[in-house]
């Protein structure tokens, strides 16, 4: 199937799929820009380049169907067709991005690719809308000159020259439009003095093949017609004498003023004639792409698996380091006077410093800006908005925030889901919004920022918000909680119900909750990343989802403690404070144990309650680790504290020992295994299983 021997072929294929995914993404982005700024030639060029690359690459990999389609598409993506069919071009580009994506997916799993018939139709429309028959009526010569050109024409009049407007239609069958253009130009030059010419070169000739020119000539209109009817090139020609302006030739200022007014009236980005001038209105698009192009340089593609291997080895080294630490500590105790002591600790200090740097560097390799993920969302929002006939704008901030690649990948689906939901259910229709006194255009904001050793990704909209009452009512109907329990829910707990599996999957919930299906999937995806979701909502003001995920999955700073006869760890980032309370400060409120911390009443969790272990010695005073999960805080009763340590997380892959409450395990320097608690899971578990009768 490919031109390469097998061993190289698979590598090249992988590379192809990777780079084509980027190409499709680039097409998506450029398509959106084109939709905003139809005349943006830089974006169009970008699409063409992308399509061209795809054409070549896919041909080299033997993906003929894709290559052919790309070839067809490349042909129609000319600046002229963009100018002619400004509405159609972005449509085609986006449709093409979708089709190419489908085809690539099919190729990737070695299936027959879809035919891409819809895209072909689009291309045909582009080709034939200004087709050889249609264009004579639809694409009339307008002779819209720029102010500079008008000035030249006015000057020619002033000198008493006779000026003709010549419109020539090139044969659409002509295989060499640029050469044809050159011939026409030659003919025109032979007929007189060219004052203005659109387009200015054959490279920007459009599908209609129309050339407009203002010609100063001493010859008759007939002569010019004769002279410029280049056989096999010009199908149609019209030569009209331009009437001498009745008023006296105006001065420069007047002309400039008028064109200014015309430009304002026409609005930015519309003026077709100006688009041909070098000072187009595509500055924003051009800058953006230039930056992107820069970013692409100087990068190295490495299989993520290789980095993982290095990361794992670094993890082992860190364990080795803490083994050394312990051994040396032991040594120091035993041989307090030995001169080797100092040398040992020097060497150790040096080693740990280098190791720290090494770890940081490897981690940095894994870090990618969230922009990689955010880039996809403008397209999603646009599609949903179109489908639903809404006016929605997506604002993106914090796209340079770095996040571990594997986390980012795992977040892609949940985030897309939330964004889609926000556009679909969150934002109201334009009429509804106006009735509520909101701007017709809804706004969805995506933001990302660091908060401690976590990254927060925020999706907010200014739509209708979540309806707490309806969510709770629904949950009761579904038997998720009793109405009595419901009365005790605080605002955040009530809203969090939408993440409950039974609640959000049913269809009717869409209307009830105002949110779509599958939020439980989002929730569990984030939880599996040891992250959590916060949720804020204000009726008719909008809703905000905050996804908190750890910076990296590879290692954490953790607080170690003994509880229920075992060693546990919690991420240091979620520890708010550590306090000590007396047993008799613990009270029972309904089914929960609570204690008072200054002015706050916090729920107390005992790990043995969660089914970890059932032994508990009675001690009068208890250490309490106050942990924050999302915007909630609770206390964790522990037997003794061990201190903090950097833990390299080892995933617990064995199903037998995996519990949602534990997010991973780690090995300490002395070989002890420590379990890392999954704080959000512990909290939600606690919320579901009240400590009924737990206190004797």
């Amino acid at each position, binding site marked *: 199937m490919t031109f390469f021997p097998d061993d190289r072929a698979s590598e090249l294929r992988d590379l192809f799929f990777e780079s084509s995914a980027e190409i499709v993404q680039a097409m998506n982005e450029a398509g959106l820009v084109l939709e905003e700024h139809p005349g943006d030639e830089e974006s169009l060029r970008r699409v063409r380049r992308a399509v061209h690359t795809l054409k070549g690459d896919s041909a080299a990999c033997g993906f003929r169907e894709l290559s052919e389609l790309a070839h067809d598409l490349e042909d129609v993506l000319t600046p002229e067709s963009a100018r002619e069919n400004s509405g159609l071009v972005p449509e085609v580009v986006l449709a093409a991005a979708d089709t190419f994506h489908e085809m690539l997916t099919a190729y990737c799993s070695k299936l027959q690719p879809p035919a891409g018939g819809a895209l072909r139709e689009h291309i045909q429309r582009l080709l034939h809308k200004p087709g050889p028959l249609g264009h004579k009526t639809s694409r009339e010569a307008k002779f819209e000159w720029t102010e500079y050109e008008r000035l030249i024409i006015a000057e020619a009049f002033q000198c008493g020259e006779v000026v003709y407007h010549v419109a020539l239609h090139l044969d659409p069958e002509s295989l060499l439009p640029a*050469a044809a253009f050159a011939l026409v130009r030659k003919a025109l030059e032979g007929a007189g003095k060219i004052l203005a010419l659109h387009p200015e070169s054959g490279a920007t000739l459009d599908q209609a093949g129309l050339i407009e020119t203002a010609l100063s000539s001493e010859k008759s209109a007939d002569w010019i017609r*004769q002279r410029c009817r280049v056989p096999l090139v010009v199908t149609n020609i019209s030569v009209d004498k331009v009437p001498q302006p009745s008023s006296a030739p105006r001065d420069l200022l007047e002309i400039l003023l008028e064109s200014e007014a015309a430009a304002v009236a026409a609005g930015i980005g519309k003026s077709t004639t100006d688009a041909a001038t070098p000072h187009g209105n595509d500055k924003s698009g051009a800058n953006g792409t230039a930056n992107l192009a820069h970013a692409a340089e100087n990068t190295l593609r490495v299989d993520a698996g290789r980095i993982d291997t290095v990361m794992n080895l670094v993890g082992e080294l860190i364990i080795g380091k803490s083994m050394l630490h312990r051994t040396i500590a032991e040594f120091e105790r035993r041989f307090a006077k030995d001169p080797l002591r100092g040398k040992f600790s020097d060497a150790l200090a040096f080693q740990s410093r280098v190791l720290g740097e090494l770890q940081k560097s490897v981690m940095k390799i894994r870090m990618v800006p969230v922009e990689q993920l955010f880039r996809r969302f403008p397209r999603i929002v646009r599609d949903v908005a179109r489908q639903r006939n809404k006016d929605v704008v997506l604002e993106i901030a914090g796209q340079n925030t770095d996040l571990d690649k594997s986390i980012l990948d795992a977040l892609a689906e949940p985030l897309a889901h939330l964004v889609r939901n926000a556009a679909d259910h969150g934002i109201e229709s334009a009429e509804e919004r106006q009735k509520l006194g909101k701007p017709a255009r809804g706004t969805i904001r995506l933001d990302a920022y660091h908060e401690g050793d976590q990254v927060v990704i925020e999706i907010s909209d200014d739509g209708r918000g979540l309806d707490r009452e309806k969510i709770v009512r629904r949950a009761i109907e579904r038997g998720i909680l009793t109405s009595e329990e419901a009365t005790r829910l605080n605002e955040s707990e009530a809203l969090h119900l939408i993440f409950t599996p039974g609640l959000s999957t049913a269809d009717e919930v869409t209307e009830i909750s105002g949110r779509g299906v599958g939020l439980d999937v989002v929730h569990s995806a984030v939880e599996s990343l040891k992250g959590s979701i916060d949720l804020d909502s204000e009726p008719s003001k909008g809703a905000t989802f905050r996804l908190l995920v750890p910076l990296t999955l590879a290692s954490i700073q953790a607080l170690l403690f003994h509880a229920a006869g075992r060693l546990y760890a919690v991420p240091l980032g979620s520890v708010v404070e550590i306090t000590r309370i007396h047993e008799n400060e613990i009270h029972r409120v309904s089914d929960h144990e609570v204690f008072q911390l200054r002015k706050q009443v916090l729920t107390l969790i005992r790990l043995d309650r969660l089914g970890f272990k059932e032994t508990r010695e009675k001690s009068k005073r208890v250490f309490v680790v106050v942990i924050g999960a999302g915007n909630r805080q609770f206390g964790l009763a522990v037997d003794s504290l061990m201190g903090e340590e950097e833990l390299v997380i080892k995933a617990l892959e064995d199903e037998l020992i995996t519990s949602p409450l534990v997010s991973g395990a780690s090995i300490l320097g002395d070989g002890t295994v420590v379990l890392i608690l999954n704080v959000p899971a512990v909290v939600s578990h606690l919320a579901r299983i009240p400590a009924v009768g737990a206190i004797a």
Partner: protein
Amino acid sequence: MKQFEPLTRKKDSQPVRYLVVDDSVFARKSLAKMIESFGGHVVGEAGDGCTAITEYTRVNPDLVLMDITMPQMEGIEAVERIVHEHPDARIVMVSSVGYQDNILAALQKGARHFVQKPVKPDALYEIIRYVLNDDGVTATVGAAQETSR
């Protein structure tokens, strides 16, 4: 082969004189056949650009049909040299599909027109008529007399 209204020189009503330049003998012969069907005379042939230049000077034709890609000296360079020596030389480039850049270059150097391979007699006839009509040496067309100046 289809016969066309003979093209003649206006000044003396003599047959138009052609120089055919192509490195392929077959291409030269098939062009010559067409030229005959237009009522013209092939007065010289050349297989490369260098010969084309000397032949032009020797036979001083009314019109040159010049292939673009040839050994030794490319058609474009030959055009440049010929037009440099004889500014009123009328050269029509003959090219394969897809050499647009070369055609553009040749047009820039002074070629008058181009025709694409495979050359269709009707197309070539139209082009020759246009190119000749262009500059004083007008071809009179027997039946369908054009209303030219």
